[in-house]
């Protein structure tokens, strides 16, 4: 920080070349590094956005041809694409909803109550995040396939978990999302002052009202952040989804499938849209949090 704050030193008489260089590095080193690091992070996104304005020549969108708005004018105009996006959004929405509700309740109970198995739960919650996705996908696949074998096939009707499809993707996404929600909400709960709830009950609010008038508004920024995280993890997931999707296509699966014979510009268009939405959501939640402080 001192590097930025330090002014050029006018008082020093006749600085040597070496000193002048040192002063320049001192002054611009950190900003330059920051710009470079951010550029490194944003480069792929910039390329994606840029190539969404490319003209489609041939099957692949690897080379720049000419500026064109064709893909933007018809963003979902590829066979199967709209359905895949729709599935992705549905799964992301439903899994976010379920995982946020379940994860928030888990986080609240883990921070609020002492019970046998609490620390074990804390550990188990962490495991799905630490497990490589490919392991999780493979074992989920095994699990789902086995529901169609004896003895499980007598308990679980055919068509619910097997053959694979929408249900299995949804279950898998809820599963890995719960961990992230729990961890995020727990962080918010950690600093929660229980006396606020006591004060609320003291003032005549029962448990239900206290949760909605005091607890929920105070941990809401954490819940919102958790939901955004869950949504983006779900809409973006490929590995686990690939194992559990069967014949159902989500957007990432569809992209992967189409990649074998074509890479349409529309993929970049949809990617840009998802990116834009994510940026707006993050901005919105940041503003909301700032207002709540």
């Amino acid at each position: 920080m001192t590097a930025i704050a330090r002014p050029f030193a006018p008082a020093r008489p006749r600085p040597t070349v070496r000193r002048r260089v040192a002063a320049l590095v001192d002054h611009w080193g950190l900003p330059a590094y920051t710009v470079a690091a951010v550029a490194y992070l944003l480069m792929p996104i910039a390329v994606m956005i840029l190539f969404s304005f490319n003209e489609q020549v041939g099957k692949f969108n690897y080379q720049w041809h000419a500026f064109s708005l064709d893909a933007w004018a018809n963003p979902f105009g590829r066979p199967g694409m709209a359905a895949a996006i729709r599935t992705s959004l549905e799964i992301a929405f439903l899994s976010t909803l379920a995982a946020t509700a379940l994860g928030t309740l888990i986080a609240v109970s883990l921070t609020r109550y002492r019970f046998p198995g609490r620390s074990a739960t804390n550990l188990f919650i962490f495991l799905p995040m630490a497990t490589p996705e490919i392991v999780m996908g493979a074992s989920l696949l095994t699990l789902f396939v086995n529901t169609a074998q004896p003895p499980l096939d007598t308990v679980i009707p055919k068509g619910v978990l097997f053959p694979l499809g929408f249900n299995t993707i949804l279950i898998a996404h809820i599963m890995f999302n719960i961990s992230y929600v729990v961890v995020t909400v727990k962080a918010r709960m950690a600093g929660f002052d229980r006396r606020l709830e006591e004060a609320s009950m003291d003032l005549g609010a029962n448990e239900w009202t206290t949760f909605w008038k005091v607890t929920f508004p105070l941990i809401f920024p954490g819940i919102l952040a958790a939901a955004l995280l869950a949504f983006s993890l779900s809409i973006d997931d490929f590995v686990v989804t690939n194992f559990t999707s069967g014949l159902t296509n989500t957007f990432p699966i569809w992209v992967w499938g189409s990649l074998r014979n074509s890479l349409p510009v529309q993929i970049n268009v949809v990617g840009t849209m998802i990116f834009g939405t994510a940026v707006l959501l993050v901005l919105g939640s940041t503003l909301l949090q700032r207002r709540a402080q």
Partner: protein
Amino acid sequence: MPEIDVRLVDVTKRFGPDVVAVDHINLEVRDGEFFSLLGPSGCGKTTTLRMIGGFEEPTSGLIELQGQDVTWLPPYRRNVNTVFQNYALFPHLSIYENVAFGLRRRKVPDQEVRRRVSEMLELVELPGYEKRRPSQLSGGQAQRVALARALINRPAVLLLDEPLGALDLKLRKQMQIELKRIQQEVGITFIYVTHDQEEAMTMSDRIAVMNRGHYEQLGTPEELYERPTTRFVAGFLGVSNMLRGERLGEDGGYAVVQVVGGARVRVPRERLNGRAAVEVGVRPEKIRLLSAGAPAAEQLNRLDGRILDASYMGVSTQYIVRVADEANLTVYEQNVERTEEGSLHRPGEMVSLAWTPEHTFVIHEGTGGDAGNAG
């Protein structure tokens, strides 16, 4: 007979098998009084308050509020409100909504809410603060808002849990007077928890001095200070000189007790209550210092000793006097007679200590007394 607002019958609270936070307390708080639970940290005073508020359930016993058994009722079904130690203002709500919180829960019409909130903010001298957030308040202001938020519900009893603990000394003094004024203005029973004996004495009508889960003595500040009945109370409220002794006989309305060095002191007879071995005490400011051998009124208690130490403290001088090579007594002497530098007693000087027998108090414990439930 004043009406009883809060009654605790044989209330005990255990945390786990080993920790007894509150140990068989019986207590009656009268309508409209300023009642304090005073004691060191861990004495059970906050737990007692939390049980009255409904935040803890007693392990056994009964809690009555205006004649109604509330032992098992949740906080929101009791007609009491609490001012929490660190205020516990809702950070996501404005001051207005904080104060209005209780009325909103009872679905009071908007117009009345508005009127009563501004009335309350007036009472705690914070008019015009409606739109602020708790984070924009100073400690003293937050304290007042917490008070307003509780009082607006017109509870039968207001519970205050060390509400001034986080404030600096000057503000605390100011708030003590303020709290007393508000209590008199609204006429609500206050139960006040504090570890600060001066604070309790300044504000309270009655005080229960708590130690290790029960109260040792209950009474007005004056009773507790002038006639403490346990060693703990004598030491917790101010400074005391304690002397072990034996009862010799009686002399008129007084019992005669032989203390250190064979000296005899007289104690109002009823305070001794027939005990043989006793411990008597006297407050340092009740003792007058006389030059050795100087004449003193016949009826005064008198001990001879040598000054060990003299500390000038401005208002008064504190002397430590060694009596009969056995006990050190502390004496405060107001600096009214001091006419020039060093004109009074010096270390090494022989002196006499004299005080009226009525200022002698008697400890009721350890010698077959009834410590603990002396209320």
